[in-house]
């Protein structure tokens, strides 16, 4: 849809007529949006306050686990951001996480799988489950929330069957390269965080400068208009769910790697809401059409910083969820106020 706009702009305004990746420049949102600047500010204040009040916060022993914990949530958040931009949602993330996590853990224990095999199996399986979601949502013409509620149950069933009512014990250290220990870091930065950052950078570029990426915004804004403008809505939507599945598969590897040698059935529980929380705190509009993966990363960082800060201040750890709730309300409230101001202007 945006390409049509670009070609209709008269050549008298050459700057706005220049395109990149088929998109007119003037139509792009700023590289770092207002919401993201606010999040960066809040994060900076939190980090300064926490390092002043708790001596342990600024140490590497505290920052490194924080980055390790952010990586899987932000990675899943990249896929979830794209889904929510198209106007969909995925509640089944926890189920996919369970299936891929337990499968890769079992591969390691029972079949002595290598790192590469475990990662590939986990990612491929995640993609397959994402394909199930995507096919049902894109071609079954049912609202995403209902389908993923259904598949969340199905995937949990599959995951528990693989668990066979037991924990997976004695997971070898094959995955340590993505883990929390010394083997999982280079120059002090966790590998999982670096990998996540690379994926985020690619996704940021894709959503901002690639035609297919822009299509996702068009679909979220108005699927009928997007179809009339020539967007293959079904295929784009299907792709976002498959991609999310792949990323959840990778996140499962991170989570198994950073856990102990025992994996239990709680691996996925509550994570679907944690991922959605990171996405909406990052400024992505739940009604579709607006959002960015950069915001999602800051959202995940904020949630994890709060959790880590609450623990180190010696407050009950259950309190961190209260702050997460308040953060969601403030982030979305700020977005609503800005929208209201835009409409008034």
């Amino acid at each position, binding site marked *: 849809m945006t390409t049509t706009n670009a070609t209709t702009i008269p050549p008298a305004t050459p700057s706005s007529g220049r395109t990149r990746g088929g998109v007119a420049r003037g139509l792009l949102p700023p590289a770092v949006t207002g919401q993201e600047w606010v999040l960066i500010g809040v994060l900076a204040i939190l980090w300064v306050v926490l390092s002043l009040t708790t001596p342990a916060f600024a140490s590497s022993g505290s920052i490194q686990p924080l980055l390790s914990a952010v990586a899987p949530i932000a990675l899943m958040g990249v896929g979830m951001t794209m889904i929510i931009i198209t106007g969909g949602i995925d509640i089944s993330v926890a189920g996919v996480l369970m299936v891929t996590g337990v499968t890769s853990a079992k591969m390691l224990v029972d079949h002595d799988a290598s790192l590469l095999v475990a990662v590939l199996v986990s990612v491929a399986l995640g993609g397959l489950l994402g394909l199930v979601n995507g096919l049902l949502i894109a071609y079954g013409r049912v609202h995403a*929330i209902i389908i993923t509620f259904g598949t*969340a149950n*199905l995937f949990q*069933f599959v995951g528990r069957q693989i668990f066979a009512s037991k924990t997976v014990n004695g997971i070898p250290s094959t995955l340590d390269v993505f883990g929390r220990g010394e083997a999982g870091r280079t120059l002090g930065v966790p590998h999982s965080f670096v990998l996540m950052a690379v994926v985020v950078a690619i996704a940021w570029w894709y959503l901002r400068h690639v035609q297919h990426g822009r299509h996702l915004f068009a679909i979220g804004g108005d699927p009928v208009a997007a179809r009339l403008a020539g967007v293959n809505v079904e295929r784009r939507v299907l792709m976002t769910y498959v991609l999310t599945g792949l990323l959840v598969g990778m996140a499962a590897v991170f989570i198994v790697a950073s856990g102990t040698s025992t994996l239990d059935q709680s691996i996925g529980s509550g994570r679907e*809401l944690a991922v959605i929380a990171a996405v909406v705190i990052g400024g992505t509009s739940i*009604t579709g059409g607006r959002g960015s993966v950069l915001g999602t990363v800051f959202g995940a960082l904020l949630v994890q910083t709060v959790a880590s800060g609450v623990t180190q201040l010696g407050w009950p750890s259950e309190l961190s969820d*209260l702050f997460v*709730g308040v953060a*969601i309300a403030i982030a979305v409230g700020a977005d609503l106020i800005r929208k209201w101001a835009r409409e008034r202007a």
Partner: protein
Amino acid sequence: MTMTPHKAHVANLPRAEEPSLVSRVVKAVLTQRIVLLAALLVIVLIWMSALGMGGYLTGSYDPDYLAGSLIDAVPMCMLALAELVVIVSGRGGIDLSIGAIVSLTGMIFGFAYGRWGWTFWLSVLLAVVVGGLLGAINGALVAYMRFPALIATLASYYAFKSLALVITNSIPISDANVTKLYGITRSIEIPVIGSQLPNVPIGVFTFMVPSVVVIWLVLARTTYGRRLFAIGTNDVAAEWTGLNVRSTRFVAYVIAGVIAGLASVYITGQFASARPDAGTSGNGLALPAITIAVLGGVAITGGIGRVAGVVLATLLVTWLDAGILLAFTGNDGTQFQLLALGLVLIFAALLNGLTQRRYGGSR
């Protein structure tokens, strides 16, 4: 979301002049969710009974067992009704926080009844008032501040869940008073005709039936109910007809909170203890409640939903689950319940999509 209604498709379908009985039945099953659910319910009951008589089940799937399994149906039905009211109110209405409200009101009820020495009725009243207040927070965010419901209730889910744990340091309240509450889930013989019938859990009469009747009356027989369906169907049109859209939607969330408060009393009785994670442990209570509401034919887009559908969906899920529990040994039963719930939900949703295209919608 990404779908366009294929109206043109409908026009192209061949239409028989005089619909045959078969096509009328098919149409009834497809367009009337209640007929479909009733048919599924009968199939499940016959199928499970046949399995039971054939000796394939580990216990007997008889009326006594079915009646006993209603213990779990009571809170599920109530919370699904709460979701019905909220989802019908439209604009993406949903309440993810309903399980967290159950946790928090349950704890406050536990404090009042178990620790502060309040009487039972006063404590129940407190639970209901607190539930209503928590619902009002959701309602204010959604109706007045125009938050998307999914986000507002996600935020309050986190906040309420956390508060429920923090106010008791994650320790359940199991004082003598609270433990004795287990009595509210006992089974009783129905008077007069009861000797022929199995004993039914008393909660069905003290909690479930009153909630069902009240919600049905409110939705079907009051102007508030009409207004709720109006704003759920099209809130711009409702606004132009002079309805107070915001207060109507606000009240829907308060009603959901009140029901959750009432359900928390029953759930406290079921556990014989006020647990801070009563509504949020594992998958929580919100997701199953939403699932049952959707299965009961409540349209996620708002404006469509019937109490009878939700009740039938609750019975279907309860009795299907009860049968599955007998069909497998050990933990397998609870796992296959997940499979069944997922399949039934997806099947119902896909059928809705089909109905939409073939008959232009269902009721």
